[in-house]
């Protein structure tokens, strides 16, 4: 199995830092944004940003893995 590129892993870690490890920084009610408590708003925003990050990861990885996968099954048998 090809290992993922370092760039991809670094970008993939961004949502982990934002939504998980940094919790003490954003776990608060104020300031309320769009009527939502700050921690709630933060997580909802990061749900969307996670998809953005993963799209970037997809773009980084797809030239490396794209074509290889659909052929590897046939190659082995």
């Amino acid at each position, binding site marked *: *199995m090809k290992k993922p590129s370092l760039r991809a892993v670094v970008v993939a870690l961004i949502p982990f830092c934002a939504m*998980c490890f940094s919790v003490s920084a954003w776990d608060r009610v104020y300031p309320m944004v769009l009527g939502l408590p700050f921690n709630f708003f933060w997580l909802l925003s990061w749900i*969307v940003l996670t998809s953005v990050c993963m799209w970037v990861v997809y773009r980084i990885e797809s030239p490396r893995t794209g074509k290889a996968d659909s052929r590897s099954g046939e190659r082995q048998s």
Partner: protein
Amino acid sequence: MSPGAIALTVIFIIVVSGSAIGFYAGTRHKMSLEQWTVGSRGFGPLLMWLLMAGETYTTFSFLGASGWAYSRGGPALYILAYLPLSYVISFFILPPIWEMGRQHGLQTQSDFFLAQYGNKYLAAFVSVVGVVFIIPYLQLQLTGLGIIVEVASFDAIGRTQAMIIAVALLAGFVFVSGIRAVAWVSVPKDILMVLAAVTIGIAVPRMYFGGIGSMFAALARADPAHLVMPGATTTLNHGWYISTVLLTAMGLNMWPQAFGASFTAKDAETLRRNAVVMPLYSLSLAFIFFTGFAAYLVIPGLSNGDLSLLAIVRKAFPAWMLGVIGGAGALTAMVPAAVLILTASTLFSKNLYRPIFAPAMTDDQVAGLARIMVVVLSLVSLLLAIFSSTTLVSLLLLGYAGVTQFFPGVVLALFWKRVTMLGVFAGLITGVACATFLILSNRDPFAGVNAGFLALCINFAVAIGLSVVRPAPTGR
């Protein structure tokens, strides 16, 4: 018609239609073992998306998330974090898993371990752990189903009766159709679920507070501590949050049925694209949270938080609406429960029974045994759901603490050449033992950290440690 009768009729229509779709889907294909478990690997992106989405939205996210927003407050936010993060992980691990599945004709998680490590006892142990930790999850679905039907019917149908009927329907369409049935029923079920959640999440705050913003403002005035961690608890603080998010993000892909579902993808590209898009689906959980928080203000004092969403719907809406919500909830419980039964019965027959007790069994005989196990497992879970009374959440977290112990074995196999079978086996045993001990002896969280996560760390340490110390494996 009484409100209960109206709600019931609507639920009945929804559940029967859903089941009919399931039966119909099954009759169109003659079922071999491979077809029965993984739909012959022909699922395109749309159907795959529906299947994965169906598995994400369970009784836990419908009743449990609102229940935790109601009863625990801030700590419930872990649910919003772990789903997207589990997809980040899936991007990297599911494609190689799929490839292995293709190359070796794998159908279950235990097959994967056998192909990677070549030891039938490890593979059998993986099946045992898989089956054992699926049972509480199955019990959770059935309990939730019982609650839904009981409350939505204004107590006209007893919880026990509801569960019995549901289990019979469930076993029926699993028996006939396998995984394709589940996929097709997911279609109406997911549409209904999203509509239900969005409607309630907007309408309830609007009715009682004038809007979502006003509702949160009122909650922030009345009880601001409820909105942050540790919320209404004393033990679920940031350490617990971080460890639980990590545990469940890793664990989501380790459920035996998640493996089975991944093998049904058309190609690895589909899995990668899903990983990019699926996090967005978690946004709809926000509406479930709105409902739970609103219920906390409107109907405080419920002894069982898991009832909060249904209780507020019953209070705020006409009976037919309650029926629609109940129907959506019933399908939401039945679809994942079907997948769970399917997975566990196949794991038992193919990966535990045949390799260890009856190596001469043919594939058709294994499929036959799996069908018997569908009935057995349904009965076991039903009995547990009826006679044991633990909360939905503690059941699920016990399940996670167990299945996440597969993570080291899977990930190290994919990315580290030096991993040895012995290391993984020892790590798995240690992890499961630690997790079970800590949770059953009420030591979760332990030192402010999720017990399953601690067990996972020990698991990794043992697996890596033993693998480094032993000679490198040859020709894996």
